[in-house]
């Protein structure tokens, strides 16, 4: 019998350690790969009261001591953490006696561990670029930013294939690091549709905690930071309220919170805009089910997973026409696309969805079907597995094989 294809993933976050989008991404990708017959090992950072080794749905998860070495700043911490990750992973691979076929790294946060192990074990390395320093900072302004950018460039140079989650990111990454076309692969991010199935259908009493029965719910989920464009939504609030009675629910926190609260106060709309902060998963899923419209007003967005989650929860979406969001949503078919950084346009879309029931039903059903067809984790795992196989086919002809 042919040996099972096996991959070792490197990620700095894996549940229950959740900092951003990489954690759920690697979690669902690993589980779906395991389901499709790939042997998956995940090497990640430790987390309080979590075992250093466990098996989750067939995925072997190793958590390494990530604070063993002191560090003067975040970037140095990352490299010092990689030192330990690489050491632990080297011992694991050694113990497994050559059973790993490919290494798969997620972002620069695990770059040095992945690059070193590629050469030490002479196995192909793949990388998924979730975000870039030059995109996050809108340019490179300090030595730290330049160093991170160069580390990202080095990682994509060493990688056999570079996976991006949207066409937008493919072209962004090609531009940022000057990569050849045939090195880049687009595999979308996924969303787990089933997680909304277990939410009860009668959410009336839950809803009553957040809004009056006659108020429509407009939902924002995201960090309260500039690039997410939350201030654009806040500026759109009075324009929406001119036309329709609604309650704006803002989930998440960030450095802009005080500033946003002040704007709301100055408009005397405290009773219409509710900042609920960070909420647990159950509450979030219910809110997404309750929302009459979900808004993603980002100014920079490599992918836009929140929009997909809303679509999976059958909540109609209004997004800004930028980055990955432009690809996820088709105007007037699966949602409304507003001009970025434009409160009037955003308000127009929100109002249209809230007032036009036929339009609302049409786009939410299309959106749900689209999510099922394109953003299903099992299909994404299949695509990823095919990339591994392609790489291994090429690798088998190299002198490393």
């Amino acid at each position, binding site marked *: 019998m042919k040996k099972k294809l096996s991959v070792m993933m490197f990620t700095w976050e894996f549940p229950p350690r959740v900092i951003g989008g990489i954690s759920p991404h690697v979690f669902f990708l690993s589980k779906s790969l395991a389901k499709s017959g790939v042997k998956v090992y995940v090497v990640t950072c430790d987390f309080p009261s979590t075992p250093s080794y466990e098996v989750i749905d067939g995925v072997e998860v190793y958590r390494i001591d990530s604070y*063993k*070495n*002191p*560090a*003067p*700043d975040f*970037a*140095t911490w990352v*490299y*010092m953490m*990689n*030192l330990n990750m*690489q*050491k*632990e992973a*080297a*011992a694991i*691979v*050694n113990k497994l006696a050559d059973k790993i076929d490919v290494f798969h790294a997620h972002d620069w946060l695990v770059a*040095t561990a992945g*690059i*070193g*192990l590629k*050469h*030490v*074990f*002479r196995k192909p390395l793949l990388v998924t670029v979730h975000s870039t320093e030059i995109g996050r900072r809108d340019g490179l302004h300090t*030595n*730290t930013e*330049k*160093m991170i*950018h*160069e*580390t990202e460039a*080095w990682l994509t140079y060493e990688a056999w294939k570079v996976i991006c989650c949207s066409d937008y990111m493919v072209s962004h990454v090609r531009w940022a690091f000057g990569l050849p076309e045939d090195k880049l692969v687009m595999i979308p991010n996924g969303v787990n549709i089933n997680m909304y199935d277990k939410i009860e259908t009668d959410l009336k009493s839950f809803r009553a905690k957040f809004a009056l029965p006659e108020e429509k719910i407009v939902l924002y989920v995201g960090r309260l930071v500039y690039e997410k464009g939350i201030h654009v939504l806040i500026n759109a609030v009075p324009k929406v309220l001119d036309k329709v009675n609604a309650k704006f629910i803002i989930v998440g926190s960030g450095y802009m919170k005080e500033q946003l609260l002040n704007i709301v106060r100055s408009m005397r709309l405290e009773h219409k805009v509710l900042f609920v902060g960070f909420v647990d998963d159950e509450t979030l899923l219910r809110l997404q089910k309750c929302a009459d419209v979900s808004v993603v007003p980002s100014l920079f967005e490599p992918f836009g997973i929140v929009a997909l989650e809303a679509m999976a929860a059958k909540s109609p979406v209004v997004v800004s026409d930028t980055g990955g969001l432009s690809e996820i949503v088709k105007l007037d078919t699966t949602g409304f696309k507003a001009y970025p950084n434009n409160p009037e346009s955003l308000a127009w879309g929100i109002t249209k969805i809230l007032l036009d029931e036929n339009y609302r039903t049409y786009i939410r059903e299309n959106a749900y079907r689209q999510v099922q067809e394109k953003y299903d984790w099992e299909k994404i795992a299949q695509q990823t597995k095919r990339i591994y196989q392609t790489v291994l086919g090429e690798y088998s002809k190299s002198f490393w094989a």
Partner: protein
Amino acid sequence: MMRVIIFSWEYPPRVVGQLSEYINALSVKLVKKKIETYVVTYHDFLTGAVEEVSGVKIVRVASPVHANIGVLTWILTLNQEVERAAANIYYQADKQIDLINVYDWHFIPAAITLKNAFNVPFIYSVESLEDQRSSNSNTPYNMSIKSIEWLGFYEAKKVSVKSELMRNEIVRIYKVPDAKVKVVSPSTDSWIKDVLEIYTSAAGGLNNK
């Protein structure tokens, strides 16, 4: 015949301190004693990447990341290139490397990874300690370097120093077991004999596995 890779961040013509000349003299002597000797060092563009001088095989690696925020991040990103160079030697030598000898803290991360990956033991040779270089400095930056030194002492099969004074310092600061540390001084007549002795004791048995 024994096969050894020496890691040093300085090697002629790159001279930062006295380590450079020491490694040069040592590696030439080792070759004369029929030890196949490789030196992996930093490439500062005064030389080619690969050369052989008096039988010593030298591989020089360059920084893949140029914008850095200090010596520490420069070193931490340079280590993967040291690993690459050492792995190339390892595979070309049919996976028969008996020992790695790493000088000071810079390339300890690479030595540790290679030990865990290939079961190749390493000797950590101490020229100086962070505690002495930056006396009384306990900033997170100094502590990072000290933690790499500590990891080096912990993972090393043997530690070699040039004086009793240094041996006492290491035992005092890092609580390294006395027996793990050996004095190998270039100012004594038994210098190369002592080097070969510690090499043999650290590499012991690996070829016969």
